[in-house]
């Protein structure tokens, strides 16, 4: 039983913490996150140089890590500095590409040469891949895609998109170069896109990639949860500092019990969130491990909203301003729940996967 980061992970975490701390302040982040292409190319290059993109893929697939723990270490640091770089979309695309022997493309992405995103979600679909409506049909040796994809994270500015669509044999994966995207910023910064496909020709990577997709999406969920933990601890630091400094009625806010108790509730939820991420990371790839992922996403969804609302309330008016960094953390924590299945979707998934024997 040891909950300390390994030496390598500690070093990786330190490197990212320092790199982002030195080069990525909140003004720069806010500027980039809401202006196309919704991220900073030099930061992306920097992350590639430091090997951070490679941390998302295993050594045998050309990366430098790829375990659930590697991913959680990276994303916790990204969350701490509220990084809008398209790491989530890259993670999803990298995982399915590396699962299907796309070594050359994987290598290009890891080196920062090109960027990819994964199109899975649709307006009428959340967690359940069987609800997917987009289709792929082979006609005269060419695969044609039809349907609409939405919430393609990190797609703006990417070089290609991997699209999931229904085939006769299951959920297939297709490769689309220079796609025509409907791009936008997200409410909390960073780029996202929709993709409308009408007999769009694409290269087929796999006819049935459901296992690979589920695994990639679960890693994405772990990444989001770890990101949330990083963002929560940064937000909590801001909130506690603010309560210690801000004076009203001649004394600091931190001397009021009503506020103290709210801050303590927040702290306990952060510890719980940290624990559930550890649980999801530890169980990833084990039988039933997807349940721990859903528990994590469910708890993080609830706790993220609590952290967000409480931190704004505890700050008072300043917490409502665009200028105050805490406001952006608060937004991110609520919006994380909208990505890759929210608390309700994951409660449904927990119910559907049934009771797990807790005592053996």
């Amino acid at each position, binding site marked *: *039983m*040891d*909950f*300390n*980061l*390994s030496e390598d*992970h500690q070093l990786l975490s330190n490197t990212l913490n320092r790199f982002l701390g030195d080069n990525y302040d909140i003004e720069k982040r806010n500027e980039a996150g809401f202006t196309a292409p919704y991220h900073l190319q030099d930061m992306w290059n920097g992350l590639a140089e430091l090997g951070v993109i490679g941390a998302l893929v295993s050594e045998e697939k050309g990366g430098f890590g790829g375990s659930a*723990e590697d991913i959680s270490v990276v994303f916790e640091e990204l969350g701490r500095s509220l990084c809008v770089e398209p790491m989530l979309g890259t993670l999803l695309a990298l995982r399915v590409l590396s699962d299907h022997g796309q070594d050359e493309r994987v290598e290009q992405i890891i080196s920062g040469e090109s960027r990819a995103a994964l199109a899975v979600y649709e307006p009428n679909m959340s967690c359940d891949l069987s609800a997917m409506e987009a289709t792929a049909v082979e006609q005269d040796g060419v695969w044609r895609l039809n349907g609409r994809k939405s919430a393609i994270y990190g797609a703006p500015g990417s070089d290609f998109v991997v699209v999931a669509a229904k085939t006769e044999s299951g959920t297939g994966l297709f490769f689309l170069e220079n796609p025509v995207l409907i791009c936008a910023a997200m409410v909390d910064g960073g780029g996202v896109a929709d993709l409308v496909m009408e007999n769009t020709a694409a290269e087929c990577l796999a006819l049935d990639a459901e296992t690979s997709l589920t695994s990639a999406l679960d890693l994405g969920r772990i990444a989001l949860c770890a990101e949330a933990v990083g963002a929560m601890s940064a937000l909590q630091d801001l909130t*506690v500092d603010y*309560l*210690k400094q801000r004076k009203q009625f001649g004394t600091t806010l*931190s001397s009021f*019990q009503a506020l*103290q*108790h709210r*801050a*303590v*509730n927040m*702290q*306990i939820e952060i*510890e*719980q*969130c*940290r*624990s*559930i991420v*550890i*649980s999801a*990371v*530890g169980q990833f790839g084990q039988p039933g491990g997807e349940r*721990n992922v*859903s*528990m*994590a996403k*469910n*708890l993080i969804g*609830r706790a993220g909203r609590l952290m967000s609302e409480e931190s704004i309330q505890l700050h008072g008016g300043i917490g409502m301003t665009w200028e105050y960094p805490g406001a952006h953390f608060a937004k991110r924590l609520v919006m994380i729940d909208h990505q890759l299945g929210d*608390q*309700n979707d994951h*409660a*449904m998934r*927990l*119910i559907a996967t049934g*009771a797990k024997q*807790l*005592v053996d």
Partner: protein
Amino acid sequence: MDLEFNETELAFRDEVRAFMRSELPEDISRKVISGNELTRDDYMRWQAILNAKGWLATTWEEEYGGPGWDAVQRHIFSEESALHGAPRMPPFGLAMMGPVLIKFGTEEQKSTLLPRILDGSDWWCQGFSEPGAGSDLASMKMRAERDGDEYVLNGQKTWTTLGQYANKIFCLVRTASEGKPQASISFLLVDLDTPGVEMRPIRLIDGGYEVNEVFFTDVRVPVENLVGNENEGWTIAKYLLTHERTNIAGVGFSIMDLERYKTLAQEIKRDGMQLSDHPIYAARAAAIEADLEALRITNLRILAETRDGSAGGVGSSMLKLKGTQVRQELQDLYRSAIGPRAATLSSGLSHNEMSVPYDAGQAAQVYFLHRKLSIFGGSNEIQRNIVAKEMFRD
């Protein structure tokens, strides 16, 4: 990062499991799991079994008859106890009086009193709270006037848990009238059969009998019954209250309760729908399960810090807070799952007459009784104060 116990710890867990399976009387575990009151005899039977094995006084040093376990072993033991429905042994003698005597008692007190705790000759109860002093213990008033070789006690104690089974009580008494309130308190041992001691039951919200009030009228106690020095009682009380409390999060209890709920949910139908398929119940259970899994890990994380010697005091406060929230949430879920039948007092029907599983009839009473979890042992608000003090320290 490694979530697993090491091999020695796993072997220990297996040993405890095997012991629980072979030695824990089934009638006792049934009662524990269904939330029934245990009799004095139930406790004494299990105490004798544990004592024979040397596993009774889990926090005592080996020279006094403890098993010499570390924090992880104690955790494993209490978790396994909960998971198998073993009684939670009343802490007053084993977890409170024993460690206090070992640290502050005279050789005479140690050699006479410690063996009596182990063999069950003495059942201790706690005389701390008073009608006017709950969380604010330092405001207690019960007086002990020195008269020759005796103290003369006058006053009242309350919330004395399982006092009805006890023959001895340890009390905080006021031995001086000046100075800081904390500096005039002493720690005194009293035989409950001393003339002038009167114990009355307090009936609780669920109708059950678990706590008492104790009245002291001119009770004469020999000065040898003092533990530590006169007016040193506050230090001893603080030691007693902060002495490592294993299983404060009650993860094992909650895991059992969740299992019990899941079994129930597969047995009960509501409007023709299996409760386990009822979306609202299932969603609540899923959220609790996530909270509980997180709590399980939080508990292990804090345990690992304790083992590595770097745990802050706030860890046990957090565990108490979240642990009691989860347990109370589970009691509430269980109560609502029973539906209209939860309103029937179980004592009015025999088990055979209940259409729901035999242990479900008491769900509402157990729910009400478990409101105590967030009040005793330092109310959850006190725990928040403790965490806040650390959090807002400069």
